[in-house]
């Protein structure tokens, strides 16, 4: 054991002690009391509140309501962080492409068949999570990552060529990602644009009618609440996530030969 390791260990122990001190002396507030924080009570009160619609998201699911409506801005940028990571990966491996026919056989036929059978089921389960994001636990990202399971399972069980054969090239995956993201942008400014065109007033990310603005998204579809932008956000987010995460995984799965071909070129200064 080196001296530096011991020093790091000691300083980490000190950090742990400090943070424990913070907890034990109530820096985080009481743990597990009967009363929630007042802000949380406000959120729970307004998440589905037909009697006070100017503060409400009209979604029975409080977490999704906070994620996509009350704090929609956070989530908008969070999606863009994922987007930046994907673009960064593409920039790292720019020029790389899946080459077909380089000794790929995947796993055994039993695994392939089982995965094949289950993949559509996982996809539809993910879609259901995205559809019901505002009614039950789940949402856009959950649904999208559920669907990504199916894609990664296929990529591993068959091989990455599988996507190439199914005409899901890297560019198309990026296109799917961008379509989803642009749909998010459109939904988030839809009411604002509408209000500007009609000469009224609306907020960015507006969902239900607000104090100064009467415009609103649909809050009910057939026999269940729709929660306006929440549903559309969930839908577009799941599309975006499935495109983006699959693209990222496929990029990381690129073979040695494919990677070797692109690096060491001459793009600097």
């Amino acid at each position, binding site marked *: 054991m080196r001296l530096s390791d011991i020093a790091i260990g000691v300083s980490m122990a000190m950090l742990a002690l400090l943070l424990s001190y913070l907890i034990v002396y109530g820096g985080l507030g009481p743990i597990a009391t009967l009363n929630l924080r007042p802000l949380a009570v406000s959120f729970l009160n307004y998440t589905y509140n037909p009697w006070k619609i100017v503060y409400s998201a009209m979604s029975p699911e409080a977490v999704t309501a906070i994620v996509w409506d009350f704090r929609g801005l956070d989530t908008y940028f969070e999606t863009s962080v994922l987007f930046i990571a994907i673009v960064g990966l593409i920039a790292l491996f720019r020029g790389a492409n899946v080459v077909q026919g380089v000794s790929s056989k995947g*796993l*055994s036929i*039993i*695994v392939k068949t*089982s*995965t094949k*059978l*289950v993949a559509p*089921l996982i996809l539809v*389960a993910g879609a259901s999570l995205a559809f019901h994001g505002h009614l*039950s636990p789940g949402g856009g990202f959950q649904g999208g990552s559920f669907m990504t399971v199916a894609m990664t399972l296929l990529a591993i069980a068959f091989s990455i060529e599988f996507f190439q054969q199914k005409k899901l090239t890297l560019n198309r995956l990026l296109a799917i990602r961008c379509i989803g993201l642009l749909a998010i942008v459109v939904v988030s400014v839809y009411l604002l644009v509408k209000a500007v065109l009609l000469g009224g007033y609306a907020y960015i990310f507006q969902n239900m009618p607000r104090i100064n603005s009467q415009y609103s998204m649909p809050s009910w579809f057939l026999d269940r609440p729709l929660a306006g932008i929440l549903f559309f956000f969930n839908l577009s987010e799941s599309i975006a996530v499935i495109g983006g995460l699959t693209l990222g995984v496929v990029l990381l799965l690129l073979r040695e030969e494919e990677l070797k071909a692109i690096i060491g070129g001459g793009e600097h200064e």
Partner: protein
Amino acid sequence: MIDMVLASAGLTLIAIGVFCDFVAAIGLIRLPNFFTRLHAATVGAIGGAVVPMLGAALLAIGYEPLGETRFILAGVAFTTSIVTMILSQAGSHALARAAYRARAAPLQPITYDALAEKRGDSSE
């Protein structure tokens, strides 16, 4: 009445599941090598997971205090059990094959190995 029947059937299945789990865990500890442990793990996956999932589905239908949403639980439990049945066998097969091919786990003790002649031949 029918509720009680369903609920007790569900509870029984869950109890079977607990027992199978226990056996599977002991088997995983006791059995000598990876390939024999595979069988104990199968007990854990089918008897210990699929059966109690079905039990949970039955119990949920019969257990009134859960309210209307209990059918969601039943549906999810049933679908999960089916998916688990399809996937657990594929998973153990994939692991066994990989362990055998990569020689990642010792094969002993074994009385007869029909695959030995095929070993090293990766023409497939």
